[in-house]
């Protein structure tokens, strides 16, 4: 039995050491971290984004790299496990010393890595539409804030479709909760009565929608035009739309506008019952634009499958990556502080013919499109905002945050959470 | 929680405080006991009395209800009807298995059930009466008196040489003896022994017979057995069970002449003898 000791002890110690010792390496490449789940429940959405970043890095290297060096992708798999996100973020920043990280999808994964990025002063590009109420020095939010997706969509329903009654249906987590809170406040401000708003939350992956669709049907038969604003997440959408179709609720009767259903999600859905339902995004694959056509072509070539679709978070990474490249070129270094400073004001073309600009609150300007789902799984744009909408980190429609602003450019503020009334800045971990 | 800890040692749900009262010479009473499984009457109005210090053999064909009877006595199965008393005063139907074990009824299973990863010594220590209080359990040592008791039982079942061996590597017969030894450690008034010699060599069988006979008097012993030769070698009184009832009772020689018994055994394909 003594041999166990002999066998295990050096083994463990050796493991410890190899784990910890980061090999010194020549700085001939700039490392870029990719922090997207490749397994687990979120793999379904995030794998595509990993490939997108790899494609962008590939393209940049073909253009000669950055600052005369090649870019090198460091891909890790946080496996849809939130503590693992933090661990992997630390690994990327501390062990691999990456210059920037492109990653995260869910809010909880972002919340999990946030302290790590702030502590180690890394840079994270977060490409997904989210609930707002956050602005970190170290994070650039290239997805939509609520005012870049939800509010314009509701405006469209209210004005163009004359919707009077509202069902706010969402999965029970922070993004739908915030979005619905903002929308509720917004609708009430527009004179919608409380009894004309129905709010419903369901768990992740909810699959039996019979009762809820029946309730929506009943709610919608009160004689006023009714619409569903859906923040239902991922997997729960398929059974939801199927049930809608089966119970005979068509887009003509009760349109559903979704904020989490894009081209990629539609590719896994039988779209027949969905035709005519709506989605609000800042990008659609169907938008006719030279940059978009080129992007789609590159994507199909890169992924070696011309049936693959493109979607909004991919565009967000496209914009974010190009902004980062420009900022590094401007700062002439990958040093975090300098790049973060250089980021604000950087402009990069988006894929729909406009130009996205990085704002002092670390959000960007975006156009908002409303698309109708087509039988081929694409969206037809039925409405778009006149110009670009500036992302607002802190919603004006929430009592807790209407006085709060984020401004990382103004030397007097330099804060993501500045209360304009109290003139203080709170909730910042690292100054 | 403290109540629970203290209760680890308490007699049971309705622990009897009085000791076993066998003043009428009868230790175990079963009266009018019936139990049904899915419509099948496993025990049907069975009445049986075991005297104090008696060695009783119970025989009967498969499905006669022998094991079920033991289940009822030891609290594993609750009957649909009938009374089961231990001595004059203790209603066994009110107690659960551990409580019944603690008032002095030990049971040996048909298949030898010893704790194989433990040594013979540890098996006996496990069975030792009086050690089942939590404080008693949270110790790693044996007191001198306990050691003596274990040594005595080891001697009695003839396993002294095997004390330090794992129970799992004992021979089949030795396992049977160890299990009987474990019953003895419980200091029971009544021993229920289910097929003690199944699979034993004749020599082992002989030793087992001696062991069981030596136990009678000091304890009451109920032996369920198929092997008629073995039954003949130990029993004073034999009960024949058939279809959940007592078919006949008496000395073995008388029973073997009983036409009903012969029919049951022949009809069931078993040879009596």
């Amino acid at each position: 039995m003594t041999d166990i000791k002999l066998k295990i002890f050096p083994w463990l110690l050796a493991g410890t050491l190899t784990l910890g010792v980061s090999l010194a390496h020549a700085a001939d490449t700039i490392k870029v971290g990719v922090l997207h789940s490749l397994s687990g429940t979120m793999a379904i959405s995030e794998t595509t984004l990993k490939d997108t970043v790899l494609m962008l890095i590939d393209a940049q290297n073909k253009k000669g790299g950055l600052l005369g060096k090649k870019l090198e992708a460091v891909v890790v798999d946080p496996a849809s496990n939130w503590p693992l996100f933090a661990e992997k973020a630390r690994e990327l920043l501390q062990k691999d010393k990456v210059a920037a990280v492109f990653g995260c999808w869910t809010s909880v994964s972002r919340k999990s890595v946030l302290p790590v990025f702030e502590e180690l002063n890394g840079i994270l590009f977060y490409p997904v539409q989210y609930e707002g109420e956050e602005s970190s020095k170290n994070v650039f939010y290239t997805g939509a804030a609520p005012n870049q997706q939800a509010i314009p969509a509701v405006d469209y329903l209210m004005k163009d479709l004359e919707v009077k009654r509202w069902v706010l249906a969402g999965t029970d987590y922070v993004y739908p909760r915030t979005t619905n809170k903002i929308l509720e406040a917004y609708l009430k401000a527009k004179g919608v009565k409380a009894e004309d708003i129905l709010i419903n939350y369901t768990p992740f992956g909810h699959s039996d929608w019979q009762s809820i669709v029946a309730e929506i049907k009943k709610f919608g038969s009160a004689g006023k035009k009714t619409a569903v604003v859906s923040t239902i997440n991922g997997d729960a959408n398929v059974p939801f739309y199927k049930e809608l179709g089966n119970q005979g609720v068509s887009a003509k009767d009760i349109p559903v506008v979704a904020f989490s259903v894009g081209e990629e999600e539609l590719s896994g859905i039988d779209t027949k019952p969905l035709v005519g339902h709506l989605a609000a995004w800042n990008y659609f694959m169907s938008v006719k634009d030279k940059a978009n056509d080129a992007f789609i072509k590159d994507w199909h070539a890169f992924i070696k499958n011309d049936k693959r679709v493109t979607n909004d978070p991919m565009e967000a990474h496209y914009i974010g990556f190009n902004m980062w490249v420009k900022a590094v070129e401007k700062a002439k270094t990958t040093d975090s502080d300098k790049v973060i400073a250089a980021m604000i004001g950087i402009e990069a073309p988006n894929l729909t013919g406009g130009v996205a600009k990085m704002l002092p609150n670390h959000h960007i300007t975006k156009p908002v499109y409303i698309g109708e789902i087509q039988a081929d799984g694409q969206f037809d744009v039925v409405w778009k905002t006149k110009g670009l909408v500036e992302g607002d980190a802190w919603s004006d429609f929430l009592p807790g945050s209407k006085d709060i602003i984020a401004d990382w450019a103004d030397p007097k503020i330099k804060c993501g959470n500045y209360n304009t009334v109290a003139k203080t800045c709170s909730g910042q971990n690292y100054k | 929680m403290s109540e629970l800890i203290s209760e680890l040692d308490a007699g049971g749900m309705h622990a009897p405080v009085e000791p076993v009262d066998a003043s009428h010479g009868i230790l175990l009473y079963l009266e009018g006991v019936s139990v049904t499984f899915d419509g099948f009457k496993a025990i049907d109005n069975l009445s049986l009395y075991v005297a104090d210090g008696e060695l009783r053999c119970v025989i009967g064909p498969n499905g006669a209800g022998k094991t079920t009877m033991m289940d009822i006595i030891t609290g594993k199965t609750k009957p649909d009807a009938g009374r089961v008393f231990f001595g004059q005063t203790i209603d066994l139907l009110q107690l659960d298995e551990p409580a019944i074990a603690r008032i002095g009824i030990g049971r040996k299973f048909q298949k030898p059930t010893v704790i194989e990863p433990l040594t013979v010594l540890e098996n006996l220590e496990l069975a030792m009466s009086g050690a089942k209080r939590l404080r008693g359990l949270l110790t790693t040592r044996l007191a001198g008196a306990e050691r003596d008791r274990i040594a005595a039982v080891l001697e009695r079942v003839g396993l002294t040489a095997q004390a330090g061996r794992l129970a799992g590597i004992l021979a089949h017969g030795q396992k049977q003896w160890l299990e009987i030894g474990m019953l003895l450690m419980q200091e029971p008034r009544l021993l229920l022994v289910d097929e003690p010699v199944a699979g034993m060599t004749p020599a082992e069988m002989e030793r087992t017979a001696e062991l069981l006979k030596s136990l009678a008097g000091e304890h009451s012993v109920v032996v369920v057995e198929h092997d008629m030769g073995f039954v003949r070698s130990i029993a004073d009184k034999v009960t024949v069970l058939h279809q959940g009832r007592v078919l006949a009772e008496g000395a073995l020689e008388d029973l073997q002449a009983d036409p009903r018994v012969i029919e049951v055994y022949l009809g069931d394909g078993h040879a009596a003898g």
Partner: protein
Amino acid sequence: MLTCPLVRAGFLTLVFAMALLAVPTPARAADDAVARALLAQLREADFSDKARLVEQLAALEHPRIATILKALADSRLYYQEAENRAVIGLDDAPTIAIEDAVGGAALGQAGKRDLEKITANNRLRNLIENRLASLGLASADPGQRRAAVQAFLKNPDPAGTERLRARLAVEPDAGIKALLALALALADLASPEAAARAQAATALGGRLQPELRGPLSRAAAEDPDPAVREAARTALTRTEFRLQLLGWAETLFFGLSLGSVLILAAIGLAVTFGVMGVINMAHGELMMLGAYTTWLTQQWLPVNWSLPVAVPLAFLVAALAGIAIERGVIRFLYGRPLETLLATFGVSLILQQAVRSIFSPLNRSVATPDWMSGTIALGPLEVTLNRLIIIGFCIAVFALLWLALQRTRLGLEVRAVTQNRAMAQAMGVRSARVDALTFGLGSGIAGVAGVALSQLTNVGPNLGQSYIVDSFMVVVFGGVGNLWGTLVAGLSLGVANKLLEPWSGAVLAKILVLVFLVLFIQKRPRGLFPQRGRAAEA
């Protein structure tokens, strides 16, 4: 009362076919030019202009109008900039066959990205549907006429009222007549005369069509005349009462439907776990295989035929996978249920990742056949066809399984091995073969359940995981080794869940059911219908 899309689509096709036949050719050249001009405008117009243009198009006496409008509604109308003409796409692919919108001549193939789609929105579609439907009111086919009236009920259009009234006078079919009366009453609700409005409101009372409730409740709240408001309120109360009753029936149906899904998911497990005592944590993944088989079948066969083919195929695929698992892993672990549990859990992870690697982590789109879409009326209760079919399917699967276990040689052997393995072997039953086949049977049923699930939920690598805990709960609740128990347990859990849901919300309902189950198992460790006796104690 069949309102499934199939009927509607057929109806529209018929309408434009009739239009083609009805109109003579001479005026065509002039009309062609007007139509082309309107279509050219349509391309540039915003949606309110488009509505006006559609009205103008609909007013044209042109044989292609119905086709064009239908194409617009279906988003198949494109503008080919290079040729400066409107075209209709005939199929749906990156490269599509097109025909001239106005002339109807086939124009070969065109790349989709070279065509500019003339978009429609929902209001426009409603308008088009109305315009097309009003043409169908005179159809010889009662189904068409009924659909036309129903279209009116959905989108009451004052312009069409007179046509309805005229039709009512000559309509022979009593059912359609009643529906016409209803439609007219609905139109009268907007009449300038208060008496007519009050009468209309009373006529609408107690009707369950959801389209009627809106206008009625509007009248009850907003009508300027108090008598009308009163009449509308009374009518509404009658409607509400009947709806209440209907609500209960509906909840029951939802419960049965959820229950049937639970049974389908659990019944294969009832065989492997209940009959064989094997804990198969990969059960959910076998369902997933069934669902993927459905998807694969749909790649080869038309959607409407795919399901009947998919059922036996899914059974086969899952059964083979099951037998492979049994032969490869489980047979070494008989009598060690906890180890079986761990090993099969490993198998489930491998299967999940295998599917992820082969089919990508993305969900696969499994289409619903037309005969499973839409609703069907059971008396006043409208139920969804797919749910109804799945309930029936569940009963059929259950009955077949029961028969298989009771009436076949395999069933007999299975029961023999279950009860006494050694004895069965002595009787010449090859228990290894029986084990493999039984496990295959249970797995095959899981595959078949997967076909049903593909019609309700996502077909993706995670499909199995979402059902595994539920299915174990059903089997344990029902009592292991008892198929009837599984049936009762599944149905009662389904109904309980649905009864709780409106009161507590979906999540809490599920938690409550789980907590109830945990408590129930404490109370009756062997389920609703326990196997009793000595065998069960062993």
